[in-house]
């Protein structure tokens, strides 16, 4: 184990995969000479050259589609879409081609593609650059969507995504790039589709993914001091969704709070609440609660932005309410 940043874990994994397999290549805007908007690909152009690290013009639909076509031919492209907001320009290619080609061809064509892209607000980037659109993709059969919360998963899930024969969207988060944590040395490939219990607990289940899981863990640790034992489940994958782990946890604790950075309506929390209603109904001691982003285009001004996003205080309050105002 080595303690490194989430950013470093992503970088090191890309580098290792480029070394491991000549079919792996990186495609995206400003990933080479500029070394990536968030410097995940720093140094990789110098090391691997323009054949493997391909700077593209600004044309998300074009280069994402090119990567899908290259994947159909057996390459393993890793696309960087600068932020998930810009993926909207490529959504036709992702939803109508990447997700469907295997099915439409009756299993004759596969798309071993990775799309890396960060979501997340809280950086005063305002409405168009702060969205959490991952549920758009998690909604679509044929895609896989993973969302590492900690550096170890940044490594394990990215490696798994690159080696997977299906299109996988790896959701990163602007607020997590500088977070640090222990990462296994050497080969580390996670299993896509498994949630992780970040902290066991007895009284209440708090579910999150990406940044929300990290905040939930922080809240749960603080609540220990008040005698509240919260179990934290990090989804790690939105499609497939590990319903079993979530339901098992709620069957144990009898209460659930779901934390998500996306908007509340039709979001991850809605899906999980419905799942819990089916899978743990008789065990519930309180209604399932959600802590999600306020339903507004995220404003620029800091107080407005802070008010709109889920934070530790909101999670703490809702956990206490769920426990009966304890």
């Amino acid at each position, binding site marked *: 184990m080595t303690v490194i940043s989430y950013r470093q874990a992503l970088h090191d994994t890309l580098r290792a995969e480029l070394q491991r397999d000549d079919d792996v290549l990186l495609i995206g805007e400003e990933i080479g000479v500029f070394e990536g908007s968030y410097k995940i690909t720093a140094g990789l152009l110098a090391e691997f050259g323009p054949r493997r690290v391909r700077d593209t*013009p600004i044309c998300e639909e*074009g280069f994402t589609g*090119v990567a899908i*076509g290259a994947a159909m031919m057996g*390459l393993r492209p890793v696309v960087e879409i600068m932020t998930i907001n810009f993926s909207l320009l490529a959504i036709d290619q992702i939803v109508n*081609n990447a997700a469907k080609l295997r099915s439409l061809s009756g299993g004759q064509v596969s798309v071993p593609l990775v799309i890396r892209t960060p979501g997340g607000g809280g950086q005063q980037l305002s409405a168009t650059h702060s969205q959490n659109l991952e549920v758009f993709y998690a909604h679509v059969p044929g895609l896989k969507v993973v969302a590492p919360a900690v550096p170890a998963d940044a490594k394990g899930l990215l490696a798994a995504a690159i080696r997977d024969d299906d299109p996988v969207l790896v959701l990163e988060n602007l607020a997590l790039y500088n977070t640090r944590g222990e990462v296994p040395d050497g080969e580390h490939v996670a299993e896509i*589709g498994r949630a992780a219990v970040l902290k066991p607990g007895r009284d209440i289940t708090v579910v999150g993914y990406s940044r929300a899981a990290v905040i939930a863990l922080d809240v749960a640790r603080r609540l220990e001091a008040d005698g509240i034992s919260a179990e934290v489940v990090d989804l790690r994958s939105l499609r497939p969704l590990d319903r079993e782990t979530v*339901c098992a946890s709620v069957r144990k604790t009898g209460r659930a709070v779901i934390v998500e950075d996306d908007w509340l309506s039709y979001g991850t929390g809605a899906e999980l609440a419905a799942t819990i209603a089916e899978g743990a109904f008789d065990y519930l001691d309180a209604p399932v609660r959600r802590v999600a982003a306020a339903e507004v285009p995220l404003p620029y001004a800091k107080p407005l932005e802070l008010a709109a996003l889920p934070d530790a205080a909101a999670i703490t309050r809702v956990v206490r309410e769920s426990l009966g105002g304890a």
Partner: protein
Amino acid sequence: MEDMETAEDPALLREYYRQMALIRAFELRAAEMYTRARIGGYCHLNLGEEATVVGLTAALRAEDYLFATYREHGYALARGADPGKVMAELFGRADGVSRGRGGSMHLFDPEHRLLGGYGIVGGQIPLATGAAFALAYKNGPGPDAPAVMCLLGDATTNIGAFHESLNLAALWRLPAVYVIVNNQLGMGTPVEAASAEPELWKRGCSYRMPGQRVDGNDVLAVRDAARAALDRAREQHQPTLLETVSYRLRGHSVVDPARYRTAEEAERLRREDPLPAFRARLVTGGILDEQAAAAIDAEADKAVAAAVDFAEASPAPDVATLFDHVYATPVAGGYRGLPGDPVAPDQAARPGPGGGGGPA
């Protein structure tokens, strides 16, 4: 025309006619099967485009790749797909080229390097560009290098993906040939009403991409232009934008009566129909006699009848295979419920009806 008979291998010319006749017979039968409800969804036919279809595919080598539009039955046939399996796909049967998953608009036959028909206008253009990228990634240019041909309709030259793809292909020097199959109508909209530059091949000039417009009713002109473009792709990794001009004989799809067409236009269409024109040309040129031509026509009808029989006999896909082919790498916990099935895992050891207050 006089040159044709001397310069061309007569057997090859007869083969082109055979393919054109097969496509014509297949498409007429597909239209009939659609009206008899054997075929569902959308069904777009190559009627009137046979010379273009056969000319383009004749220029392709076995190792080249083809990405098509949703009007692609003829291309699948000319590429070598079994007519029975193509018809079975239109019928939505288990033996269809796409195992009944794709239908008319999504014919896949990787064995013949047909990497799909595409239902979303222009969706195939970035993919074909990516396939050319993959070829260039693996191998340099050369006389034996494979290339990619990407078909698109006239109206497709107005979408962003077309321009983004051409820019990338030219910038990165990819072995791709983009072919605008200009049938002069995007659904019911004439080219002149949709494109500020109606000489569509000129749109490649923005990308310093060589281009050419050819008569899509002339199978040999189409073939020669496509062959030159493919050679440029394989030998120089220089992409080309080719435009073939023809006219579809029927509506946009089987259900479109094409009322937007004037009587004069319809009359002109019948006059310029490439199939009887090529037939007459071969008969006049002494390549085919009337009897041999009639035999080819009969053979085409027979092949299509056999294709229909094959499709009729092929079973519908088993519902138990519904979730097959969605993912290549199996996943943990993937939900495979049918409508109304429970979503959540079994509530093992449930405390009892209306229990509330579980073992917390």
